[in-house]
């Protein structure tokens, strides 16, 4: 478990990166965890692809917001799923500083919550936190595969981003939900 914990943090920071330098920093974190990732020669190219997929300004190839995958036909930001994850954060005493501006169900924020829960569980035994962790993993597994599918299908996608997305899928697959004691 502990070997994977930092990875979730680095996945979170990778998908939240604002520029090539932040992408590179998160990527190096992932690589240092031992994730088998290709060598990158031009981070600017990765950033162009990253922006086509997740940022804009063109219509997004793979929007990184859960509501677009979990809310059926209601494909908008700030949907019902966004509200639910905000409530989960609040149950944990957490909130996003970007509340109402960046949807709370941005992949990076959901992964950050998972990382924080795992950090806490490493020091305290809390059935409540384990429940929250189960819920969050179940939720991520419900939408991340569709999200990753859109990355894989995107035209002109940079292979490095596909590799990170595949690594995320594997990481979420390996995290075993812990039964409530």
């Amino acid at each position, binding site marked *: 478990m502990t070997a994977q914990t930092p990875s979730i943090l680095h996945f*979170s920071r990778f998908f*939240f990166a*604002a*520029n*090539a330098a932040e992408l590179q920093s998160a990527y190096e974190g992932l690589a240092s965890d031992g994730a088998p990732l290709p060598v990158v020669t031009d981070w*600017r190219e990765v*950033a*162009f692809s990253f*922006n086509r997929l997740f*940022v*804009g*300004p*063109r*219509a*997004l190839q793979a929007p990184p917001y859960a509501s*677009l995958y*979990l809310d059926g036909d209601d*494909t*908008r*930001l700030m*949907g019902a799923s966004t*509200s*639910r994850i*905000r*409530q*989960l*954060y*609040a*149950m*944990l*005493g*957490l*909130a*996003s*500083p970007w*509340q*109402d*501006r960046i949807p709370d169900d941005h992949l*990076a*924020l959901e992964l*950050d919550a998972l*990382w*924080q*829960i795992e*950090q*806490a569980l490493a020091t*305290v035994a*809390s059935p*409540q*936190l384990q*429940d929250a962790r*189960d*819920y969050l993993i*179940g*939720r991520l597994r*419900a*939408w991340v595969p569709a999200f990753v599918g859109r990355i894989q299908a995107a035209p002109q996608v940079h292979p490095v981003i596909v590799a990170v997305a595949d690594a995320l899928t594997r990481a979420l697959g390996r995290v075993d*939900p812990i*039964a*409530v004691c």
Partner: protein
Amino acid sequence: MHESKSSGAQNIALALGNNLSRRSFLKILMMTGAAAALPGTGLLRSFSQEGPVFGRATFAGPGAYQTFRNACPRNCYDTCGIVSYVKDGVLEFVEGEPTSTYTNGGLCVKGYAYPRTVYSPDRIKYPMRQVGRGSGNWERISWEEALDAISGKILEIKEKDGSLLGMALTKYSGNFGITHYGVEGMLSSLGYTTRFVGTPCWPAGIDAQNYDMGNMWCNDPEDMAQSKYIIVWGANPAYCSVHSLKYIYEAKKRGAKVVVIDPVLTQTAVKGDEYWQIKPGADGALALAMSRHLIDQGLVSREWVAANGLGYDEYEAYIKANVTVEWGAEQAGLPVDVVKRVAEEFAAADPATIWIGYGMQRHVNGGVNVRAIDALVAMTGNVGKPGGGARYGHLFTWGFNYNAMVQAAPEGSVGYTGATGPKGEFDTGQGADAAATYTDRTFNINKIGQEILDAQDPPVRLLWIANKNVVSQDFDKNKIVKAFEKVEMIVAVDLFFNPTVEQADIVLPTVTPFEDWTVNVSYWHYWLHLNEQAIKPLFETKSDIEIASALSAVLNAKQPGSCTFPQNIDAKEMMIKEFNDGIYQLFGITSWEDLRKGAAKAKLPSSASWSDLKFATPSGKYEFKSEIAQTNGHTALPEYKAGREAYAPLRLLTPHAKHGLHSQFQNLDWMHDLNPEPLVYVHPRTAGAKGIVDGDTVRVFNPTGEIRLKAQLTNNVPADTLLMYEAWFGAKNGFNVNLLVDDVSSDMGAYKTGSPGVAIHDQFADIEKVAA
């Protein structure tokens, strides 16, 4: 809840949305030390570190909405008041403003889709820079980086040219909120620049009404209910002004007759009692023919024209010498007896009115045609009468301070020294300094491609585009894209990635009405709507005046005194500064805050414009003969003027769509559900001759360009006409009617708006079947 399977996860799922369970869950976490074990310092932060407001401890239950007042600012007759319903900081849905009798609690299909605009995943979220224009390689930059690059370019231009005339602005109607004139203000605050002036929309008709009556001023649309006879001439309110239809229906219920004149059998036309399929551009000939018949039958209101008209006798003499009913009917493609009958009915009804649409003035003879229709209304004594009037539009309620717009040039600014006119229809002349040595350089807004190609000393080096999707909506797309190659830096401020943003070097993300403070009025009805900030601006979006303010701060840090736009503004304070006593008196309110309770309507002495029959012309009369028109190069009388000669076999009409307003709304998912793809509408006879069947892919082409799309066969369009509704369908569709529409000017517009309009409906094309 399909997200969760295990019992632990189910516990959480049940607790979500339940304030009590959520609080007790957190309480347990706190008591057991689990809450303290969470780092609380990741992307997500713990409440305790961020103060009491942060994190919003409670969640509103079902039905617990906050409401806000908003307004639709998208260049529409109806300019609706909106009530916005917000829960937990999220705009959930919108309704029409119930306190306005005009909006009357309902919105149009576009208005109801507003939350889809706000929360579209495709909105532009951050300032971004394109590495290689048109390359599709975009990097996200901070506002600081964006403003550094732009301010650097501004200072470089000043240094190189000795003036800022190399910086140009094109802005129009993407958001008609009054504070959005701060875009013009931003340019003024930088110095003397180049402005694309005029309006693509309605300028020929504005000039026409100014020649005739001294201003453009329409009756209250709500008084159409009192009309006994309504001619809707070249307008399609069923698509473009749905809130006006109820007054037409009411008039019908009270016994009025409704005649619709349009080249296309529109949804409005089928609601009339009578429909006339006129030949495009023959409106003047038809009005003259109807006038001739009134003269022949002794149905002219002699008393009215004698008391209130100037030059009527000369106009009558012109008609008698040059016009016959038979000639005019033939020009219009209508039966003589029908023209005569409707002319008689119109003269007999009291009051009778004509709604003059904007489509019919988008011709090389559009302005003079409006004048002939105005004259027909005047000759029957219907001008100045409730339920009457030659209705076109008005700017009667637009007397704001334009505080954001009026900015002084920095000291020592150098500008243009040639002659200049008004900068668009909203230019009130406020803030113009008579003693100023310099002015802005003005270019025709409707010929942006040609003007940029021709510009010299200096060329256009930096182009600022706001509230306008130029590459979709301006004329001759290919020419525009070619011209843009000449421009050193293009900055586009927009909501969505459209063909204009595609050509930009830097894009700045802007706000929807719901994230903004402003105030809105209409050019048709007489209501005033407050627009409150209902939700926080998403991502890093900023309003036009916030952008101006931020740019000013950066420029003044680099070169003190280089920009006069106020820094560190508060958007709400800027909105308040647009109000004045004149507005308060006109609308019978004591403070802008009164508008939080609902919309206000102008206190009009009469629902009729010109009710005192004191016209704003030089003579104070209704001028059938206008010396100003003559001075400006037109005929003094509204004489017949031929239309544009055809340059291809079929006429091409590109009117306004039902599911979009220019390039807005049609890109949204809900609109795609209703109207998934653009079509060209073709008469079955024309299609048959070309071997085209319904659903075929066709090529529509002319010397300006070509479009490939599907054909739909319909009897609603004349056999010699092709029709495509203008719209931007979104990033995945290259459809653009302006690949086929050239930039030939209409006759009028320069007098009151600075540039002539465009002969949008004097276009021609051919069609052929191609492989799908």
